[in-house]
């Protein structure tokens, strides 16, 4: 009886294991199918997002060109109005009609030439726009979302922190920022698109608690320094785990209203940001004007990492301005 019971239990046990294995296999297959479906949907979403970003970028570029053309048109219109007024005044002067008529004729001719020239220019622009291939206007740059993920702190850099005799366009602003970053030891940076401007992202660096950068090579290492030199230091690190502070700075150059959302940019995303963007400012961006309404805002993402605990975003400690000062960027801008 006992033997039969043991045999039955053994068969049941083996059967259970067999079922579990079969069931696990089935679940894995379902999971794989679902994952591939998710990946497909995600790819399609990314593609649509990219197309949307490209379209926004083209729209921005066209809007800026349009504004430029509008300014030209306004100035031409003013000139035409001025000439019209001049002609009218000549026509009104009856006494001096014969003397002034030659001048009036000349002005009318000028006016006609101007109108024809404007008309030609308009036609040419229309033709250019129609014949420009999509690839030429397409600017391949990823987007930095606004509202942006909640930063640790931020600082709007006042214009007086910059040298006052610089040209006000994107390439100059970029070179001033890039030179300042280079002076402070930031070798890698990355560019993203934001509406009416761009975002410059620095690489993830390790800093001290007060915001000063660590010395190389520890500064660019993503590992915490254990300092395990002897048994005593080992015992110390067993009870007091090593901690570290990491920072990414995002410079936003734009004239749009800036605000943060509640999403948190995790440390891995921040680390990957410098590898994800463009290595230089796209050529079509360089001559765009940095207008009076444009601002330069630095977003600071600071993470505290304790061995064994997931990285956490530090909240406004130290404040944004102090971060830029301690990093040496404020001084380097001058």
């Amino acid at each position, binding site marked *: 009886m006992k033997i039969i019971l043991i045999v039955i239990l053994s068969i049941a046990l083996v059967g259970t294991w067999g079922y579990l294995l079969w069931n696990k296999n089935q679940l894995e297959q379902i999971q794989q199918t679902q994952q591939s479906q998710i990946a497909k949907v995600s790819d399609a979403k990314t593609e649509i997002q990219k197309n949307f970003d490209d379209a926004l970028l083209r729209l921005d570029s066209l809007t800026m060109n349009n504004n430029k053309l509008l300014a030209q048109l306004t100035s031409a219109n003013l000139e035409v109005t001025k000439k019209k007024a001049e002609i009218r005044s000549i026509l009104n002067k009856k006494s001096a009609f014969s003397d002034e008529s030659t001048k009036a004729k000349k002005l009318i001719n000028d006016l006609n030439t101007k109108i024809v020239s404007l008309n030609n220019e308009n036609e040419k622009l229309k033709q250019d726009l129609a014949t420009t291939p999509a690839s030429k206007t397409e600017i391949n740059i990823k987007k930095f979302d606004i509202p942006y993920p909640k930063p640790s702190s931020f600082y709007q850099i006042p214009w007086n922190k910059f040298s006052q005799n610089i040209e006000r366009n994107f390439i100059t602003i970029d070179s001033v920022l890039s030179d300042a970053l280079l002076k402070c030891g930031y070798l890698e940076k990355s560019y993203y698109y934001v509406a009416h401007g761009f975002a410059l992202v620095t690489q993830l660096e390790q800093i001290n608690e007060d915001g000063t950068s660590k010395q190389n090579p520890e500064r660019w290492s993503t590992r915490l320094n254990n300092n*395990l030199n002897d048994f005593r230091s080992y015992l110390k690190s*067993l009870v007091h*785990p*090593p901690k570290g502070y990491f920072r990414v700075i995002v410079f936003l150059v734009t004239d749009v209203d800036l605000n943060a959302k509640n999403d948190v940019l995790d440390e891995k995303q921040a680390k990957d940001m410098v590898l994800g963007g463009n290595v230089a400012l796209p050529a079509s961006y360089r001559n765009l004007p940095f207008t009076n309404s444009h601002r330069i805002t630095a977003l600071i993402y600071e993470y505290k*990492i304790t*061995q*064994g*605990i*997931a*990285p956490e975003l530090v909240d406004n400690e130290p404040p944004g301005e102090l971060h830029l000062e301690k990093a040496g960027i404020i001084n380097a801008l001058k």
Partner: protein
Amino acid sequence: MNTIEKYSAQRNLLIVWLLSSLFVLIIFMLMAWPRTTNATFSDTAQWLFNYLSPGLTLIIGAFVYSARTANIDKIKQIDKIYFRITLCFCVVYLTTIAICILLVPIILDGNTELIIYLKNWNVILSFLQTSVIALLGIFFTKEN
């Protein structure tokens, strides 16, 4: 055949388990307390208790039962080889848990959570735990 009194063998095993578990528990608390948050500490502590409590309760339960029937159990003898194999496996198992905890400051980098690191040891510890529990089961039921 070389034999040993079963009651004293059980007592020796109990002493090894109690002292080792106490040592492991102390270093685990010292190591895990600053490396966990309030939310993750219970998961981390549960990981340790999953590996210590089955063996410990089995040995304590069997020893309490033996203590109640001490006069009879003192007559019972067991082959020394069974005791030595069981003791050896228990020591290896408890040492592995201790090593896993003591390696944390050396191995763990800033990007891995403590519980993830500890779970990486699950395969080897589960295998050792199964072997130790099976050997303890044989040891407690076997007698000459």
